[in-house]
């Protein structure tokens, strides 16, 4: 609320650049499309036109000044997606040797107002690089993720800061918190993988610990694709593969016998069968026949929207078993 009222104040006290005495020496330059028929023309507001007419004028003479810096602020507030304005602003910040911590505050404000805008996040990244200090980035992204826990921009920025400045220490705790708030937050699951992959790696112990953790989460929400995918992610690093990790295979069998028909569970058992057949383990519990039956169940009962996919996949399995396609 306070934000919008201050914006309103700003608008009622707004003075056009053309009416500002300190800009008298500049001749504003109109945009020239160069054609006499409108092509995706924008009916600019008077304010927008005024600001950008002066923007064109200062860029043309490459003016590096305080007033030009102020002008870029007005220009990005009108259109935060204009990457040229941002680049020009950075040039000025550099040549005037401005205090970049002040600019960090501006970037934060702009991110708050445009959380899904690429340019504002990029601006922030450049500032952090220039300052060589990422001590405020975890906090900033946490604020933004509190508003939208799946904001892709915030996650990319956070991953970049963590990886570049080695800020892994508390990250798994943060991920835990997010998964307690929303067990289906796929971004958080992805972050969990990112942290482990870049720190301890998936050693035997880590695989065990992570498997326990994930199976507990699956018990809470059995139709949660994110957790099932993460489980598969862990098992990519288990040399035993999908079906020979008895903790996982037992868990799946128990779940199945208890009457759970989550497509993700059944798909997992199908893939266990697939692996068993491909590797010629000849485990009768994970046979081709069982896989084909389960594909049929998925297609006709438990995952009908993917009917054609499961029919196709059953065929792939058959062809693999007959040696027609390489596994």
């Amino acid at each position: 609320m306070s934000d919008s009222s201050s914006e309103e104040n700003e608008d009622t006290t707004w003075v056009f650049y053309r009416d500002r005495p300190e800009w008298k020496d500049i001749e504003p330059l109109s945009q020239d499309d160069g054609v006499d028929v409108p092509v995706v023309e924008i009916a600019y507001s008077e304010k927008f036109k005024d600001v950008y007419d002066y923007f064109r004028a200062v860029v043309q003479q490459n003016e590096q000044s305080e007033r030009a810096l102020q002008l870029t602020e007005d220009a990005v507030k009108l259109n935060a997606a204009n990457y040229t304005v941002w680049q020009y602003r950075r040039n000025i910040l550099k040549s005037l040797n401005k205090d970049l911590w002040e600019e960090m505050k501006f970037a934060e404000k702009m991110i708050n107002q445009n959380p899904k805008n690429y340019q504002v996040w990029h601006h922030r990244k450049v500032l952090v690089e220039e300052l060589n200090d990422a001590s405020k980035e975890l906090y900033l992204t946490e604020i933004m993720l509190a508003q939208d826990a799946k904001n892709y921009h915030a996650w990319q920025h956070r991953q970049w800061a963590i990886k570049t400045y080695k800020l892994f220490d508390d990250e798994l705790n943060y991920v835990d918190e997010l998964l307690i708030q929303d067990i289906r937050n796929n971004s958080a699951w992805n972050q969990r993988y990112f942290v482990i992959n870049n720190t301890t790696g998936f050693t035997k112990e880590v695989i065990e610990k992570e498997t326990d953790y994930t199976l507990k989460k699956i018990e809470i929400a059995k139709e949660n694709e994110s957790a099932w995918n993460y489980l598969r992610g862990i098992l990519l690093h288990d040399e035993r593969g999908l079906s020979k990790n008895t903790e996982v295979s037992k868990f799946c069998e128990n779940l199945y016998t208890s009457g759970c028909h989550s497509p993700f569970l059944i798909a997992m058992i199908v893939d266990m069968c697939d692996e068993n057949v491909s590797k010629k383990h000849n485990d009768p519990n994970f046979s081709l026949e069982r896989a084909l039956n389960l594909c049929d169940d998925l297609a006709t009962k438990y995952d009908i929207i993917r009917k054609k996919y499961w029919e196709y996949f059953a065929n792939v399995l058959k062809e693999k078993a007959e040696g027609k396609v390489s596994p």
Partner: protein
Amino acid sequence: MEKHNKLYVNKHERYFLRFLDILPSALEKFDATRVLLTYFCVSGLDILNALDKIDNKKREAIINWIYKLQVVNEEEEVSGFQGSSTLSTIKNKSKNSPLKWGHITATYTALCTLVILGDDLSRVNRKAIAHSLKKLQLPSGCFTAAKEGTESDMRFVFSVASVCYLIDDWSGMDVDKTIDFILKSISYDNGIGQEPGAEAHGGSTYCAIATLALCKRLNSLSRRQLDGIIRWLVFRQQSGFQGRPNKPVDTCYSFWVGGALKILGVYDLIDFQENYTSVILTQSKIMGGFAKWVGLNGDPLHSYLGLAGLTFMKLEKCQLNQVVPELNITVNAFQQLKVIHDKWRSS
């Protein structure tokens, strides 16, 4: 399928034509990407078989305006097309001036628009563009969008691949490095993220797969990776498509995810009825256009991608021109491009 929920073809036609003229000031946030909007409208009309509704004078104006956005600057190595006329004034007309730089997605959409409108690309300085592309590739294999001042991710990898394909010159891209970047961006869940470590996403998965197709390097994917990607893609269907697991369905993913499946030759595995209904419910029957979600206002991006996604399903009642998924232009436009390429190659 189309019985109860028909596609309002004429409304969409008028929607695109309206945007080709003038946008309200509420859309000032698109000011830096007017070329992209032009592409959505022109390609949208092409899908609707309505290019003839753009009269000759207008057609010429669009083509000339786009060419005016071309930058040929071999000294600064910033050749390509700008996203809009923000920096164009009467004074610097067709002259290089500070920060007049090409942007790779603008270059991609500018070239597509020219091809769709029947231009022969003879005024495109292909050599200069290919040369400037080299400046955009990072050691990781990823690309930025302009020489300085933009982020880098899979969107720009795709944009560069498309531009290389369109100008029929791959000298600006180190293809092996690009493929390496793509393979490293495959996530543990088999989808593909914007960069290594990032969450798999329908948009970046499309960009990656389309790039592989344009480079003719789909065979870089192992059988296991391919099976995994297909599984990840088909699992995005809820009714329409979502962009990531546990996210809501959104019109544009019927194109991004559908397009990736189409490129991989397995589009038929999806549920057409569910997808059709989901997309069609986001169309505005009054204003035309499509929205991200039911109940929201339409916008040019979702309007175009909604429609482009529908072309993958051969509809019975209305004739939509098919879209070539990896380049995102219609089959007709693609054939025109092939004629241009043949001419270049024989000269």
